[in-house]
């Protein structure tokens, strides 16, 4: 069965695209046939993070409008098997994304391309693009920075996810939404300069999928156009690998949340 996952946050610049790229790559590495779709119409960037910007011919809006079929538009990743990218278009037409159009693309990915996972990289904000990215989702990953405006916006988005998805409208209840805390700095948390994982979790009250430490590896990865999860020696890459494992149901302790090498969670819960 195909699972549709939206990666969202409300606020911009917190790591949605980085996370979408890492999550999709991680799932593909584990053998799941995965497509990652950029919903940020007009501000395409996932192609750069995935390192396929020079291979873009057709895009999401081309498929919706019938100028290209899904097979023509999908870009097959060169580094990882089972991984495909559907870029956003650079059109400025806000109405290019329609509910029927997006549904058609998702159906084609499910029925014709036999995808296991479809990752929808949401744009920032709560406009059409963000609503479309979330509407058909079966599950959500809420990306948040330990910072007031990001946490507040995430709470808004969690509220929207609870009412504005197809599952919610059909009365199936809320879709599962999990928190991914990014740009985390244990040193600053310890000095009382940054909200802790526990603080953010207490406020947002959703399950924790992972904590990604603030890391030079993320910028290195985007500079190179290679998802950070492929940088297996880096802290951020390992944290994303853990998050993907948890996403698939594994129980793993959270690493990189404490200043000490041995994590606080490890010591508290007998790791």
């Amino acid at each position: 069965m195909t699972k549709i996952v939206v990666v969202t946050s409300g606020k911009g610049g917190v790591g949605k695209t980085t996370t979408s790229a890492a999550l999709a790559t991680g799932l593909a590495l584990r053998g799941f046939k995965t497509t990652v779709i950029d919903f940020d119409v007009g501000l395409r960037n996932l192609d750069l993070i995935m390192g396929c910007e020079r291979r873009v011919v057709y895009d999401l809006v081309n498929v919706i409008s019938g100028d290209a079929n899904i097979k023509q538009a999908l870009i097959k990743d060169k580094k990882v098997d089972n991984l495909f990218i559907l870029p956003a278009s650079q059109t400025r037409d806000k109405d290019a994304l329609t509910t029927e159009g997006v549904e058609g693309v998702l159906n084609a990915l499910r029925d014709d391309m036999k995808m296991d996972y479809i990752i929808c990289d949401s744009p920032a904000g709560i406009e059409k693009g963000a609503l479309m990215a979330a509407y058909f989702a079966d599950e959500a990953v809420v990306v948040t920075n330990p910072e007031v405006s990001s946490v507040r916006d995430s709470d808004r988005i969690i509220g929207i996810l609870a009412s504005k998805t197809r599952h919610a409208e059909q009365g199936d209840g809320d879709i599962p939404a999990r928190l991914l805390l990014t740009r985390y700095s244990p040193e600053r948390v310890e000095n009382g300069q940054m909200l802790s994982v526990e603080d953010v979790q207490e406020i947002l009250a959703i399950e924790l999928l992972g904590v990604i430490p603030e890391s030079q590896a993320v910028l290195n990865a985007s500079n190179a156009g290679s998802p950070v999860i492929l940088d297996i020696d880096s802290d951020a890459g390992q944290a994303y690998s853990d998050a993907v494992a948890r996403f698939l149901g594994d129980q793993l302790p959270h690493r990189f949340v404490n200043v000490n090498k041995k994590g606080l969670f490890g010591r508290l819960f007998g790791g």
Partner: protein
Amino acid sequence: MSIFSYLLPKKQTSASVAKERLQIIVARERSTRGGPDYLPQLQQELLMVVRKYVPVGEDAVNVQVDRDSGCEILELNITLPEEEAQQQY
């Protein structure tokens, strides 16, 4: 001097200030979540009407929609000031 500073409560960190502010604003925004779009304006206009007669603060009027077994209830809560303040008015 140092013994006094030791006894005094620790200065609040910026993270704990952030947490407190967030808890308050998030709780407030959640209370209006999912309600009809006209609620904030209704609240403002009600406040203006009440103020024609009684001096009340910004937070005096509270509007909320509750759903109870298929029935929607619009709940208005108006907090009036103390007697003395009213007489002065």
